[in-house]
């Protein structure tokens, strides 16, 4: 399961970012922020590709010693970044992919909320609980 989930706006500022454990929050913020380098590069590389044929899932952005960072970018250039513990080998690419899809669906629900102003920080409870379900349960 994920240790950090982040939603990044088109302009690259964070819309939502949550991580477990809480005490090392800053480290994950930096990790998500630096992963945007790779996202930017990947997005600009496939910029020419047809929009409807484009794969939203960007795959593994970069591995660190302890974590793996995965990326996903929507057609409106909103980025999802997920940090997974490296030791968690049970997670396959397909599972990551489906987690991202779930995240995307939930994000779409947030966007459909008429009271949500696109570009504001996400404060939806439904989204929050969905993210919680994807995170490691700290016991």
């Amino acid at each position, binding site marked *: 399961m994920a240790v950090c989930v982040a939603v990044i706006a088109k302009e690259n*500022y*964070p819309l939502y970012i949550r991580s477990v454990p809480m005490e090392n929050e800053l480290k994950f913020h*930096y990790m998500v922020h*630096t992963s945007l*380098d790779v996202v930017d*590069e990947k997005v600009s590389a496939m910029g020419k590709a047809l929009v409807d044929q484009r794969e939203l899932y960007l795959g593994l952005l970069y591995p660190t010693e302890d974590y793996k960072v995965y990326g996903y970018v929507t057609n409106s250039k909103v980025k999802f970044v997920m940090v997974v513990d490296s030791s968690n080998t049970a997670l396959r690419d397909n599972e990551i992919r489906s987690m991202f899809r779930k995240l995307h669906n939930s994000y779409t629900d947030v966007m459909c909320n008429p009271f949500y102003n696109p*570009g504001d920080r996400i404060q939806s409870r439904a989204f929050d609980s969905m993210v919680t379900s994807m995170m490691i349960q700290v016991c």
Partner: protein
Amino acid sequence: MSPTQWDFPVELCCRPMAFVTLTGLDVVYNAVHRAVWDAFCANRRADRVPISFKVLPGDHEYPKCRPKRTSYEWYIPKGILKTGWMNKHLNLVPALVVVFYELDWDEPQWKEKQSECATRVEIVRQSLQGRNTKVAVVLIQKKTPLPPGEDVIASERAAALCNACELSGKSLFVLPHTDHLVGYIIRLENAFYEHAQTYYYTEIRRVKSHKEFLNKTTHQLLFVRHQFKIAFFSELKQDTQNALKNYRTAYNLVHELRAHETNILEIKTMAGFINYKICRLCFQHNTPLDAIAQFRKHIDLCKKKIGSAELSFEHAAWMSKQFQAFGDLFDEAIKLGLTAIQTQNPGFYYQQAAYYAQERKQLAKALCNHEASVTYPNPDPLETQTGVLDFYGQRPWRQGILSFDLSDPEKEKVGILAIQLKERNVVHSEIIITLLSNAVAQFKKYKCPRMKSHLMVQMGEEYYYAKDYTKALKLLDYVMCDYRSEGWWTLLTSVLTTALKCSYLMAQLKDYITYSLELLGRASTLKDDQKSRIEKNLINVLMNESPDPEPDCDPLAVKTAQKLWADRISLAGSNVFTIGVQDFVPFVQCKAKFHAPSFHVDVPVQFDIYLKADCPHPIRFSKLCVSFNNQEYNQFCVIQEASKASEVLENLTQGKMCLVPGKTRKFLFKFIAKTEDVGKKIEITSVDLVLGHETGRCVVLNWQGGGGDAASSQEALQASRSFKRRPKLPDHEVHWDSVLIQANTMIISRVPNISVHLRHDPPALTNEMYCLLVTIQSHEKTQIRDLKLTAGLKPGQDANLTQKTQVTLHGTELCDESCPALLTDIPVGDLNPGEQLEKMLYIRCGTVGSRMFLVYVSYLINTTTEEKEIVCKCHKDETVTIETVFPFDVAVKFVSTKFEHLERVYADIPFLLMTDLLSASPWALTIVSSELQLAPSMSPVDQLESQVDQVVLQTGESASECFCLRCPSVGNVEGGVATGHYIISWKRTSAMENVPVISTVITLPHVIVENIPLHVNADLPSFGRVRESLPVKYHLQNKTNLVQDVEISVEPSDAFMFSGLKQIRLRILPGTEQEMLYNFYPLMAGYQQLPSLNINLLRFPNFTNQLLRRFIPTTIFVKPQGRLMDDTSIAAA
């Protein structure tokens, strides 16, 4: 930096090359020998064989060879690899010893020389006893050798020498000292290289041969050692494929060793060495992915092998070194042409190395915090007898002990203490910063700006720990804007917090204030209690007091800082800090808004400054001032409170100079614009908010333009997108988001209170003096002065119009080109309230089309605004579009005397010019007169007086004239002959007497004149009468210079009887005329076809009857016999 314990030995990192020693060369005193040596060692580029040469004396003692072991049964190895082994084979034990000897084939004392050479070889052999090192002899000769086989003495003596030295023929070389020295040397060294390879081959065989004696229980270490040796010899042999294979085997063997706390360091050290070699060779073989895979495997295997917990920092140091070394290898490979990518570049390895270095620092901090009283043990347990270790990776106090049980726990304790105390002296920050800066350089190359920023933050923090605050601030300040511009507030806050500590510890006032301002602002994610603390500190600083220390600072550093702050307080000097806020997010926001996008000059300009504070407690400022592009207004827009600095904290909630957190404060400013600024833009260039007092210490927050900082544009965008309902606020309060910045306004002139009317009769006619009546009426309450009129063509239209339009005030005479298209500033005088005046303007438009005319009336008036008398300049303008049309259309056509249309006229034959003047004007026109001015080539046949004088034409009516002209024969003129001009003088019927008459000149079209050979004209009455004789005379004129043969025939007609020559052939002399007389006798009434005259010119077949019919009538009206006449005749009868 001197090599540390963790750096790899040089002999491991270098590229192994075959070692060859040269003896018998005196490179100091012998020039020839020197040249030979130079040729060996100079210019060793990649295309030369990889050999390292060394010059040694002939009697050099080589390392002694240990006696051959016949059995390994009782042998127990003491370690994996001896520290001296690699160096021994790189630099001490040669693969080949070359004996140089000066000897020519024709040497007279051959025997003596030969035996001396043999002795030298023998000495070398002696010192190499037991080794497989090859020996070769090179004879340095003065003479160029003859081709092989020709020199009989040479081959004989060579054989003899080989025999004497016990050399094979392959080991004897000749080096003629001639011009081609380098060429000979290269051939020589290639031969040496072959010998060296044979030597290393036998060495490999020798090591391999030991294998069968080993057993797995006692000789595990030897398996690794031998495998490593084989691989190393293969490298010396330049057989990198086999070297790699053997290193890989060695690597696997290392991990098969039984690991225990006592030998884990040795295992890791050797694993690190072998891994280094494997990765190096993989990069060399251009298989970087293999290198990366090996390294990953290596790290995964060794990550958990921490060893002794008390020395866990050693593991971190070792890990750090592994990553650093791999990063170096990777980087080196890139320099040699490998391409790296964003996600796989050396930067990641340096970064990880730095991470382990940081871990090492943490561990060292935790494990090496011995009391100051703990002294370094004596005798030093880390000292060895030789000063170096025997085996790589062993502990100095128990070298060669393989037992896993600690024989002497006390000794062990002392050793660990020694290591810990040594570790305490290591400058970790320096190591970390070096690694981080390596990583930064890499990430910069591979387009990872954010990674670079992150590493720079870490570097800054490391400098902070290292107490180099200046460098820390420099780095942190550099990256701050990246996080700010991308809106990562948590990261920005963390960077700012560190920066604030640095500036506190250095007592850097301006930085301290700047960072405080931002940490208090809305971009900061600090908790309120932190913000309160910072705000309190900020106010303290502004009151010239020392702030409280930042939390988590080194107590020693705090003490220094407090002293620095105390110095700052006592020091006078610059205490006003101006901080431009547009590049960061301060805790006060500002918006300036003019009430309107434009103001009339006679009303005061008003604008609001909105301020909002985001800090936790109310804050009081001392001054608010606004600067404009016209600085004269600055003085009117200042709010200042004469409060003492100490009052900043008191009376917080009241007073207009106080900002309550979260509440928007509005400050209204007004001033009267200067009349000179009419038509100009007034712009707020900056807003300054002063915190603290100018007499004490104060900060000027400076907003460029009408406010806004680094975050406000994004916020404004979000606010504009939002359609959330804002809660209702009391009347005088506003929502911050709903305030839009309006930083400039236009000053426009006072609204005029006069009316301007234009009277005219459009459309204008080309070239006429078009009359435009301007009526100005004043509705002002007071007298208006200096009334001026500007009228004419509105500027900015087609440039051609300007030349074709003239405006004048005098309508009685035609204006010419000198008149301007726009009359400016015609003084009209003053006007009392209610009065009106009229002004007549005449416009002459030379071309058709529509034109915009401008009538601009300006005047001065005195008015009072806010008890201030000002002179306003007002103006009113009217524009009118006037269409200009042709007054009439003139059509001109040429017809024959029979009124038939002519495409061309015939020389000397009269024709008619018809003009048709069709009025196109909507107004009645009076044609005053018309005139035909003929070109010299034309001559009139009769008078040319005008037939349309004083004719009045209504719209659509036309007036025609007809002139009979003749054109004398001219040659063939291209484009025809000019006819002349037709001049029409006209004016509007409605125009006044004094309005001048306009002459319109029409250029008549050119006409093509053609010569004809024969002209025929007929004299005949205008009509005939039935049964009355009708005499017809045809005149045939020869227009040529030739005698013409003419055939004439007259065809009979039913309507006529006729007499005369019916068919004739005659000649007409040049220029003469022949008359033919016929008498027709009409038989029928009505239009009748005359008997047609056919003329056939023998010389001019083109001359047809068709042409003829143009000149002579073909029909005639025949009247019936007059009844009247009949009556009379009857009567007469």
